[in-house]
């Protein structure tokens, strides 16, 4: 699911201490923080240290750097939704009891460890209630619904037993041809 994409004044007040107004307003990322169900975005890479109340993670592979429970993890360059890493899944696996959607949208993200561009498939996990944790939205390359395969405003729980959206993964399909 790739729905949220907005900035909140409340968030701006919270984040303003960490980041300049300019970088805030020009940022691309998005997070959902707090238990308050307020989508607070974009975060302008302000979520570099992850989400409050969410413990940091690593992949355990230095070739796959960063924190999969943080919005700025390299694979999430075109993600939009709740990060499965924060919801009982991982960056490439769905939480227990959900079904991974076979129909996805695709991004091309650069891995900072090897400098290569990877094709990332943003498979949604479906069938349970929305996770509500670690909402992350990055709209680089997003295009309106008229180009659905590049659109993140659509509920991509398609081809699954239920269209109820739970969270989103970022699965490596391979490296991109230049």
């Amino acid at each position, binding site marked *: 699911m790739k729905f949220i994409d907005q900035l*909140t*004044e409340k968030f701006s007040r919270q984040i303003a201490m960490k980041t300049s107004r300019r970088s805030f307003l020009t940022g691309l990322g998005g997070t959902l923080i707090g238990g308050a169900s*307020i989508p607070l975005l974009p975060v302008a890479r302000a979520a570099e240290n992850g989400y409050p109340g969410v413990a940091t993670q690593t992949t355990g592979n230095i070739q796959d750097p960063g924190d999969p429970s943080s919005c700025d993890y390299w694979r999430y360059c075109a993600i939009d939704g709740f990060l499965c890493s924060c919801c009982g899944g991982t960056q490439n696996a769905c939480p227990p009891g959900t079904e991974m959607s076979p129909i996805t949208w695709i991004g091309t993200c650069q891995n900072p460890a090897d400098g290569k561009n990877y094709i990332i498939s943003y498979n949604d996990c479906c069938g349970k209630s929305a996770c*509500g944790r670690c909402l992350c939205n990055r709209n680089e390359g997003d295009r309106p619904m*008229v180009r659905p395969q590049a659109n993140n405003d659509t509920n991509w729980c398609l081809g699954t037993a239920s269209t109820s959206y739970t969270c989103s993964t970022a699965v490596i399909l391979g490296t991109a041809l230049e």
Partner: protein
Amino acid sequence: MTTLKSLVATACFFCTGALAADDLPVEPTPNVVTLPSEYSKDWIFAQDLNFVEPVGGKIVVLDVAADTRNYKGAMNASLFASFTQSTTRPELYSAQTFYSRGTYGDRIDVLAIYDTATLSPVDEIILPGGKRGQTMSTRSNLVMSGNDRFAFVFNFTPAASVQIVDMVERKLLEEIQTPGCSQLYPTGDTNFAMQCAAGGMSVFEIDASGAFQKRHDTEAFNDIDDNPLFVKYARINDVAYFPTFLGDIQPIELKDGTAKPLESWSVLTPEEKAQNWRPGGWQVIDGGDTDGLFYILMHADGVEGSHKNGGSEVWVFDPETRTKVRTIPLPNWGITIAVTRGETPYLTVTNGNFELDVFNAKTGELLRTIGGGATQHAFQLFPVE
């Protein structure tokens, strides 16, 4: 255990005996508020998507002009529902999806009909096949035909199609395949246009009985790669004004059942362009106020991907003269905007706290903020038409 019904009766028995002449009177139950069948044009419908539990989405009816009692009532709108209103019948429509066990089990899609006076679901048309397109709420997933007879429901599976429903007969008609096209823009009495992946629009010709006749494609004019049209637009008379990511306005004449692209123009001065002012947000544009203006939500320092960031200002344009007539700074940021259709237009803005800021659209004065949990995530606002 004494049942509570009898307990209430007992309490009432005691009390009525004690009522003195100057006591506040006993109040009748049950007591349920009703609304006028025809709503004020100062009212809006705010669609609360409720991201944390989308099956709990709803449409909240709000009087944005009143000094008090702004919240008039609500209707269910489950799982990325679509919403539209009849302009000739006292009815509201919401296309929704339900599962027999909340988020799993058997799926049913329905087009529910709500009575304006009671906000009760008075009827529903079942939409077969589990095809209803579920997206962030747009105004163009579910629309009424120009003559207010047919509802068009956008399907996405990801194959695109449109279901036609006769809302007078409350009867499902045919499903039209609309490959490569998305969103619905009525034109003429019964036709509708769609934006299509090849960069043009297509008009789907529907006859007076609701039967599909044929498809007409325009030339390509939408640069989806580099400067795409938003799917949101402001409609003023018979012209749809679509903004683009980079701040152009693409007018499309939607008249007599056709769609005709007109000359595009930019809302930006060279200085503003240099500062990368761009439209941004969810419903980034609205129009149709009594002055024939459109309102567009703008942010500076735009970059690729900032087209949903919201904005710090609303710019007001006269589309005839292509001039900016007003700038309305938003003290609390803006995500989605709408302008009411009544004599005094009210600019209503879903702000950065997901409250609604209401401005006098003619003066830019902030009149009130409607919040307190009235909606959780009101990403879409529909003025009463």
